[in-house]
C-alpha cells in the first residue's frame, strides 16, 4: 500500500530531481573545473576555484562587503520604517487607508521601474535630490550619490527600503491587529504611556512578524540584482557590485566554473546569515 502511494510522488520527484537536484550536483561539479560555458571539454582544477574565491579574490570580497553593508542598512532601515508606519497606520483613522495604499504602492512596481525612478532622484545634474537641496539652500550637501565610491551602496539601500517597506508595513499591521485590545487596556490602567505601550505590548507581540520581516528582507537584499543593474549598469562599478552581480559578471566573462564556485560561496553566505538570524531570533524572543 505504502509503495503504491509512493508512486504518486514520482512525477514531483522526477521534476525536482531533473530540474533541481541534478543541476545542483552539476553546479558543484562545474565548480571544480575551468569550464568556460561553451567548450565541449574542460579540465579539472580541484578546489582551486573555491580557494581562489575565498582567499584571494578582492573583487569577490568587495562584493561580499558591499552586500553585507547593503543587508545591514536595508534590514535595519526597512524593519524600523515598516514598524513605524504600521504603528502609525494600524488604527483605522481618517486617511489611514489612503496612506497605507500610498506607502504600499512602490511594492507593485517592477524593480526596473524603481531603478529608473531612483536614477532620476540621484542624478547629480537633473536629479530631484540635489534640486531639493539646492532649493532649501543646502547645496553644500549635494552629492554624486551613485558615483560616490564610499556611500554609493547605501544610496541603493535607500531605494530598496522605499521599494519594500510598504509590503513589510502590511505584515506588521496584520501582526498589530492580532494583539488583543485587553493588553493595551491593562497597560493603560497601569499608567503606561504610548512609548511604554509600544515597548511592553506591541513590540513583544509582533516578534513573530519581525522574524518574518527580517527573513524576507534578507532574501530581498541578496536578490537586489535587478535593482543594482538598473541603477548602476552592467557590469556595475566595484562600489555597487554585490554577490549576485559579481557572479553574473564572472558568468559573462566566460568563466562558468569559477562562477559556480562563487555561487557555492554565495550559498554558504546566505545559509550563514540565515542561521545567525535564526539564532539571534531565538535568543531575543526565546
Amino acid at each position: 500500500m505504502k509503495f503504491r502511494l509512493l508512486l504518486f510522488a514520482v512525477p514531483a520527484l522526477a521534476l525536482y530531481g531533473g530540474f533541481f537536484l541534478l543541476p545542483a550536483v552539476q553546479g558543484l561539479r562545474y565548480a571544480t573545473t575551468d569550464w568556460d560555458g561553451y567548450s565541449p571539454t574542460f579540465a579539472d582544477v580541484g578546489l582551486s576555484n573555491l580557494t581562489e574565491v575565498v582567499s584571494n579574490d578582492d573583487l569577490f570580497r568587495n562584493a561580499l562587503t558591499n552586500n553585507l553593508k547593503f543587508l545591514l542598512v536595508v534590514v535595519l532601515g526597512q524593519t524600523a520604517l515598516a514598524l513605524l508606519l504600521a504603528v502609525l497606520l494600524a488604527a483605522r483613522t481618517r486617511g489611514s487607508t489612503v496612506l497605507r495604499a500610498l506607502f504600499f504602492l512602490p511594492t507593485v512596481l517592477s524593480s526596473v521601474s524603481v531603478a529608473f525612478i531612483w536614477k532620476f532622484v540621484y542624478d547629480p545634474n537633473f536629479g530631484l535630490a540635489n534640486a531639493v537641496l539646492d532649493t532649501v539652500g543646502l547645496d553644500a550637501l549635494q552629492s554624486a550619490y551613485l558615483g560616490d565610491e564610499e556611500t554609493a551602496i547605501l544610496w541603493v539601500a535607500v531605494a530598496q527600503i522605499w521599494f519594500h517597506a510598504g509590503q513589510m508595513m502590511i505584515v506588521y499591521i496584520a501582526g498589530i491587529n492580532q494583539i488583543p485590545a485587553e493588553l493595551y487596556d491593562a497597560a493603560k490602567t497601569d499608567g503606561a504611556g504610548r512609548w511604554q505601550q509600544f515597548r511592553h505590548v506591541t513590540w513583544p507581540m509582533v516578534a513573530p512578524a519581525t522574524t518574518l520581516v527580517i527573513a524576507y528582507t534578507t532574501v530581498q537584499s541578496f536578490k537586489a540584482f535587478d535593482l543594482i543593474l538598473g541603477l548602476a549598469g552592467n557590469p556595475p562599478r566595484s562600489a555597487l557590485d554585490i554577490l549576485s552581480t559579481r557572479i553574473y559578471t564572472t558568468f559573462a566573462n566566460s568563466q562558468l566554473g569559477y562562477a559556480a564556485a562563487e555561487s557555492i560561496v554565495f550559498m554558504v553566505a546566505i545559509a550563514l546569515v540565515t542561521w545567525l538570524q535564526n539564532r539571534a531570533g531565538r535568543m531575543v524572543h526565546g
Partner: protein
Amino acid sequence: MNRRDLFRIAAGAGAASLLAACAGPGGDPAPTTGSGGDLSFAHWRAEDKEVFEQIIAEFKKSKNFGVRQDISPSNDYQSTALQKLRGGSIGDAFTAFRGAQFLDIAKAGVSADLTGKAVLAGYEPSLITAGATGGKQLGIPYQLVFNTPLANTDLLSKAGIGEAPKDWQGFLALADRLKSQGVTPIAWPGGDAANAGQLLNVLVVNNAPTDDALGKIETGEHKVTDDWFLTVLKQYAELRPYFPDNATGTSSDAALALFAQGKAALLATGSFQIAGVRKLGATFPIDLLAPITTTADKAKYEGVFNATFILGVNTRSARQDDALAWIEHLSDPAVAGVYANGTAQHVTVKGVEYTNADLKALAPWLTRKTALAPRFQFTNLDIRGAVENATVQVAGGKSPEEAAEAAQKVIDQKKK
C-alpha cells in the same frame, strides 16, 4: 544546526547552482540544410528596428522568406547571446560586440568562416580587421563609429575657438576658456560604466607606447602603474574642474541632455550618440574634437574609431545560406546607405552615399588619422572594469597613484 537548517542549505545550494548548471557543455550542431519561415537576425540595437524593418521589406521582395529581428537589450546581449546562438533557433544571422564577445563566439565555433566570400569585396579591408581572428574572417564589422568627444561648434565659436587644439596644454586652455564663458566644458557620464570608458580611448591612444598597450595590461606585459598609464590618470585629474560637479554620478542620459541643451560644449562619448542628441532637439552643428594628450609633435592620432556590430552567420543554424544572403543584402551600398542615413551611423561598406547632415559633416573623419579604439582590446570584463574604475575614481578625487595601485592589484589576480 538542525535538520531544518540542513534542508534550507540544501535548497540554497540547489538554487545557487541552478544558474551555473542549466547549460551543460557540448551539444551537437544543428543540421545545415534549410527550413521555412522567417530568418532570425539577432542584435541589440532596438533603436535601429524601424530602419531594419524597412530594409527587410525590400529584402523580402526578392526572396521567398523574411527576416525576424530578435532584439535583446545590449547588456543582456553581451551576457547571453552566445548561449542563445548555440541553440541554433535564434540568430541564423547575428551581430557581436567587438572584443570579448566576438572572440568568445569565435572560440565557441559559432561563427561561420567568411574568408574568401564575395561579400567581403564590398567592404573597406582596413575597417573589418576587427572581424578577423586566427587568420579567418569570422565576422564583418558593419558600423563605423568614432569614440571621440562630440563638440558643439557653436559654443566653440562663441568662445573664440576656431580650430581644435593640437596638444594637451591647448586642450586645457580651451576648457578654461569655455568655463570662463559659463559653459560646462565636458559632459562626461562618469556614473555609467559603459559610456564613461569611452573617454579612456582618446586619452590612451597618444600616451600609450604601443597601439596594443591596453591589451598588454591584460596579459601582464604592461601595468597601470607604468608611467604612461599614470600620465593618463593624471590627465583625468587635470580634467576634474572641467567636468560637471559630481560627474562620477552622472548618467549617460544626463550627460546627453547637458550637451543637447547647449549647457556643455563637449560630450565625451562618441558619434553613436549623435542620433540621441538630435532626438532631444539639438539643432547646433556637431563635430568631433579629441583631446590630444601629448605635445603636437608626439601625437600619432587625431581621434579614435571603432568597427563594431559585427555581422556573422551562425554555424548552428539550419539556414546558413539564407543568413549569408541577408548579410549580402546589408552589404549592398544602397542598402547600407539606408541603414547609415536612417540611424546616423557611418558604415564600413564601400561606396555608401551619406545624405544625413551629421554623417556628411563628419565624413572628413573617415580619412583622418584615427586609431582603432583600444578599450576593446580588453577581453576580461573584470580587468576592463578595474582600469575604468580607476579613471572614475581619479575623476572623483582619488590620487592617480592610489587608484593605479588598487587597480593593478585586481589585474594581477585576474590576468590570464
